[in-house]
């Protein structure tokens, strides 16, 4: 059972995961097109205004408090300043989700066995604490989905599915590490949940993983990170 789960089953999972991601990326490039905007073609006064804004010249810096003011203004214009608590929660949640599985000792032992290389690892107690933190943040998202009227009003079963697909590998991993219930069964569940999560990424609401990077960095919009060069195509 164990050999099957971390052998053929893992290979199938990775093929579906990478294939699904490639399909999603392909879909994005099909649905969007390159848009060329020549900055030199913009009127000159607007251009200097934009440049000044980029350089933050509207705040003259004479003292340390001006530096704080500058950052305060800068942050107030963004989501980070508007919702500091939610931003912190979501950033920590996603960072742990992405990096914790890579730096776990147990995972790297397997990786070393298979491919002969390993990533740097964190100590087991750190990983344990971060997992606990992740589970708490997961509960925050879960309670928010139930209790907050605005989130509840747009929630469907697919949102709960995505949330639980994310939380399950961490919860079972935590239980397996502490050997609560039968270790073997929980470990199997942990592997199955992790594989199901990877399979779910391209096909459920977890598709926001590739979509976020593609849409926020590549679509030209006043809210995009950097200067996007694409736009959604009409009539496709």
């Amino acid at each position, binding site marked *: 059972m164990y050999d099957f789960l971390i052998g053929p089953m893992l290979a199938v999972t990775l093929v579906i995961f990478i294939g699904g991601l490639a399909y999603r990326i392909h879909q994005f490039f099909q649905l969007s097109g390159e848009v060329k905007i020549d900055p030199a073609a913009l009127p000159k006064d607007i251009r200097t205004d934009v440049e000044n804004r980029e350089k933050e010249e509207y705040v003259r810096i004479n003292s340390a408090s001006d530096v704080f003011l500058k950052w305060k203004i800068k942050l107030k214009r963004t989501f980070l300043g508007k*919702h500091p608590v939610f931003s912190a929660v979501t950033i920590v949640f996603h960072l742990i989700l992405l990096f914790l599985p890579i730096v776990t000792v147990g995972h790297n032992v397997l990786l070393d066995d298979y491919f002969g290389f390993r990533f740097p690892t964190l100590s087991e107690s750190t990983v344990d604490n971060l997992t606990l933190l992740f589970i708490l943040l997961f509960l925050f998202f879960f309670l928010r989905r139930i209790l907050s009227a605005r989130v509840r009003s747009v*929630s469907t079963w697919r949102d709960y599915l995505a949330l639980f697909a994310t939380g399950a590998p961490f919860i079972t991993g935590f239980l397996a590490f502490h050997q609560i219930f039968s270790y073997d069964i929980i470990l199997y569940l942990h592997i199955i949940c992790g594989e199901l999560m990877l399979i779910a990424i391209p096909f459920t609401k977890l598709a*926001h993983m590739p979509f976020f990077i593609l*849409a926020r960095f590549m679509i030209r919009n006043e809210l995009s990170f950097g200067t996007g060069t694409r736009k959604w195509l009409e*009539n496709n």
Partner: protein
Amino acid sequence: MDAVSLVEENSIRKMLDQKKNMEFFLSVCVGCGMCADSCFLYVNNNKDPSYMPSYKAVHSLGKMYRKKGRVSRRELEEMKDLIWDKCVLCTRCYCPVGISIPSMISWARSICRSQGVFREYDQTDELSK
């Protein structure tokens, strides 16, 4: 158009198929509710969730996609309030994931119009109730 006449499901489906990117948008909307505060109508209407940008898109165009175009005239009439009276297409809404919400509401309007459902010029709240 006669209020009891049937909707042409095929033409709705055809219009839905034209916008593959919107199907993609709806499949990645995580319903985080963070677009709410960027909508001035939401902020000025006692934070009523039905004014939230994602609510307006998910319960109009999203509903059409979920039902694969098989919506009744009554459902389209119910959407009217959501996509015309509760949204002015100011395109200010912010989506952390990068979904273009106004384009979805605008396309939902186009689909409603194609079925003869639209907001009448002098229709006010008092008259419609």
